[in-house]
């Protein structure tokens, strides 16, 4: 009705809302970076301290490795898990494979020489919907006995001392901290421009944005792997949501709602980044869809949510978890309007950008864009990867890909909310390198 009566006013209000959201997220992210730098909550455990714990004092540790239709990376899993410095009698590595995924099962049996080798064992997940990673993890959790539980993806190369560091960090932080998120980075960062962008983004995410969220007391959307969780807490919050396609982010939110804290662990898991743009868009669209899913699930009871995680927590949730995919979705519209305005100057564009919308929009477009680029370049330098700075400099092109993924996620959220966009791994062509901390 309003749209019919006052189309320009409604359009200007909608545009104004997104400009405001853009301003708020830009300021929020800058604040996160400031806090992450000013009081970095990342827990670092030295090699000596990590190794100082006698084997007998270490808790039982469960490592869940869900895999689906990726026979080509199974051999690497075995290598990566064998490299972990943790006593075999206190470690159980569960390869969670779908019972009808015969190819991967065969590859795993070949690599292990049977159903198990040392601490690594195959766990068959009964076929059935939803066929998702969180469902596999829940089954693994039911069959495991470790006091601490972590997840690695099949292609991950965790830093060998990561489990020991996690044990020491848990002991130092006390029982309120239920989860430690290790940093993720990419070992194939040299492969192409897409991966350089992805690496810079991940490093910014795990070195600045997530620590910033922790420092500001907001709930943390966990990364998909290398989150180390106390079993008690995991059981208490009900494990993973098998219907959510970013069960990791959802778990982080539920931990926060139950009063647990999450801390960053100063240890890096090297993952394989998507080197193929189509594959990348699929993966990113699943993440965005999952973020929107998680947000929708948790704001169903806004009063309870606010009571549990506080106003600041809700603000962080809105500006970080919800705004990221939403803004990626609407960005193409703004780019299009800008291009249209420069080329043709149609009065309709001017009508939806009254001065109160236009000037903040212009400012956030320039300042926000430049800030994002500078943050990427600075993070590449701070992470000791100055050679990735050039990629960070042209990262606006990367934002186009993000928007494609966000639009796909938006469509899928309605059409197929729990459909899991499988990411193909094993595209890494770089030679094996030594894993570094």
């Amino acid at each position, binding site marked *: 009705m309003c749209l019919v009566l006052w189309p320009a006013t409604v359009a200007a209000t909608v545009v104004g809302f997104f400009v405001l959201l853009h301003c708020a997220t830009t300021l929020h992210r800058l604040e996160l*970076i400031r806090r992450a*730098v000013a*009081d970095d909550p990342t827990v670092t455990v030295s090699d000596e*301290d990590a190794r*100082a*714990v*006698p084997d*007998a*004092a*270490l*808790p039982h540790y469960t490592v869940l490795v869900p895999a689906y239709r990726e026979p080509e990376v199974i051999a690497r899993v075995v290598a990566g898990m064998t490299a972990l410095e943790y006593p075999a009698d206190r470690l159980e590595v569960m390869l969670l494979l779908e019972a009808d995924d015969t190819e991967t099962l065969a590859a795993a049996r070949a690599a292990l020489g049977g159903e198990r080798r040392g601490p690594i064992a195959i766990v068959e997940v009964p076929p059935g919907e939803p066929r998702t990673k969180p469902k596999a993890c829940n089954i693994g959790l039911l069959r495991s006995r470790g*006091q601490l539980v972590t997840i690695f993806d099949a292609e991950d190369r965790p830093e060998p001392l990561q489990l020991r560091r996690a*044990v*020491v960090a*848990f*002991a130092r932080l006390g*029982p*309120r901290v*239920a989860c430690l998120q290790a940093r993720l980075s990419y070992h194939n960062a040299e492969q192409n421009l897409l991966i350089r962008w992805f690496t810079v983004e991940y490093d910014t995410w795990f070195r600045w944005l997530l620590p910033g969220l922790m*420092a500001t*007391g907001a709930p943390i959307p966990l990364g998909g792997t290398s989150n180390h969780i*106390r*079993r*008690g*807490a995991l059981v*208490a*919050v009900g494990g993973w949501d098998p219907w959510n396609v970013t069960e990791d982010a959802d778990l982080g939110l539920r931990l926060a709602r*139950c*009063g*647990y*804290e999450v801390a960053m662990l100063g240890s890096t898991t090297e993952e394989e980044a998507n080197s193929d743009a189509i594959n990348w868009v699929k993966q990113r669209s699943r993440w965005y869809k999952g973020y929107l899913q998680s947000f929708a699930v948790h704001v169903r009871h806004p009063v309870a949510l606010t*009571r*549990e995680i506080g106003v600041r927590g809700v603000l962080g949730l809105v500006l970080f978890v919800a705004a990221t995919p939403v803004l990626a979705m609407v960005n193409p519209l703004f780019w299009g309007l800008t291009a249209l305005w420069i080329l043709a100057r149609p009065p309709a564009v001017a009508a939806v950008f009254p*001065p109160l919308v236009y*000037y903040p929009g212009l400012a956030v477009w*320039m300042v926000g864009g*430049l800030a994002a680029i*500078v943050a990427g*370049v*600075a*993070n*590449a*330098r*701070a992470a*000791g990867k*100055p*050679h990735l*700075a050039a990629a960070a*400099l042209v990262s606006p092109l990367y934002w186009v890909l993000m928007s494609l993924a966000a639009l796909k996620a938006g469509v899928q959220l309605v059409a197929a909310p729990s459909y899991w966009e499988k990411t193909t791994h094993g595209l890494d062509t770089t030679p094996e390198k030594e894993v570094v901390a």
Partner: protein
Amino acid sequence: MTDVATRPLLPGALPPAPRPRRPRRRPTAVLTWFLGALAVYVAAGAVLVLVHDGVMEDALARVSAASSVWSSSDPKLAAIGYVWTPLPALLMVPFTPLRVLWPALVSQGYLAALLSAVASAAAVATTWGLLGDLRVRPLPRVLTTLLFALSPMVLLYAGNGMTEALLVAFLLAAARRLLAWVRDGETTALVAAGLFLALGYLARYEALVATLGAAVVVTVVTARRTGTLRRPARRRDAVLVDVGLVAGPPAAAFVLWAVVSWLVVGSPFEQFTSAYGNAALLAGADAAAVSIAVPARQLTWLAPALVPLLVLVLARALWRAPRGPALALVAVPVALFGAVLAFEWVTYLSGNLFGFLRYQITAIPLVVVLLGLLLARDHDDRRDDEPGTAAAVLRAGVGALVVVAVLGAGIATSARAMVTEPVDATQEYHRVAPLAGAPTAESALGMWASDREVAERVDAMDLPAASVLVDSGSGFAVVAASRHPERFLITSDDGFAAALADPPAHGIRVVLRSEGGGVDAVRARWASLGTPAGPAWARPLGAVAPATRFSPTWTLWEVSGRP
């Protein structure tokens, strides 16, 4: 660590409880310095600008432009003008509508004085923080901050609305971050330095030269710093990235502002090319004999102890064990502030800049930072940390004496120059000397009275909007003083050029012409008004005599329609 295995893992969900908060350090000392300095500067500005009508020309012009954004007959952001970089005017734009409640904010330019007061107070707070970073002992730290805050040039430029205050504040902030970066290599400090330099450029062109100085320092420091990057290619990348981080934001600001200027007024560098820019002003001014003695004398007034201080600081750095980093620390203020000084000298000596005393104001923060480096204590220096020991008291006492000697000398010489040097400290002399009671001084205080009288006369005429033609480059004070600014058609309004060419055809009822002073488009086009060769539509409405030697004579012309 052995209790980990036996510690009971969490039995279930913990009840929601307030999260333990990390105690945050409250910046009370910094805030106290900021607020204290602000109070002094706001008061100083009130005395100079409100009581004695002593706001500087450029400052009032910026307030008038910022006000025109809302109140001109053709309101638009582009009215902030393109001769100067935009930050000072942009910062004032949100506050100019307050003229409705308090006209003097705009009519006397007090808003600009408030802006320079805030900037200078921030500079004082930054100085306090910078000296703390360097671990200067409390007594010399307090004295340095205090004497910097109260030095005559800083006090005057905090109160007169000029952008020198912003330049000093941003350069000091950049210097503080750059010193931190040289000390510990934290990338974010470098980013902050780059952002402050970018803001500096958006306030004053000179910050671009400081950026070049900073880029040189960063290049050398990163190239010599081994760090964890061992491969030469990576280290080359590191140098490029570090220079990009410190120089990229100012470079982006430079490009952005040039593009915006080009889009709006059709020329990227109005300061250098327009009729109101520096070059045109120089061409219009009397070419006084350029002599190296002028900037040299000015520098000795502002910073008489600069050279011996620099020698002392260099000697201390050379004597330090890791000589490279110590010298790099000294290079930071020399590069930032020294580059600006060198630039002003070179452009003045090559005839491209006026020889104003204020152009060398960066000599004062240079001295302050050098003092900080002279009195700095290393972070591992624990020998005399016990406060109250004889050694500590002695060192603090000697430091305090050095501070008082160095900054005190500058205060004395610069204050003297302001009341005795009508030529080489001309802008300061004509405003400070009358206040100090110097009997023979020609005062620039009250110079805007004639412009206000013009505004009153025009206001009394009850004219429609956009009917008073005036070049806001010369008539900014008239527009600022008017209660009806929308009645003027000013340079930034669409239709100004057409109305200037043919006033009667464009609804112009009154034309204002300044009879002297700087560039005036009306005077340039209609020099013939009032002469036999003049147009028939003009009827003289009389003149307004200049209030001071520094004010123009205004003539008013009624447009009487085509004959």
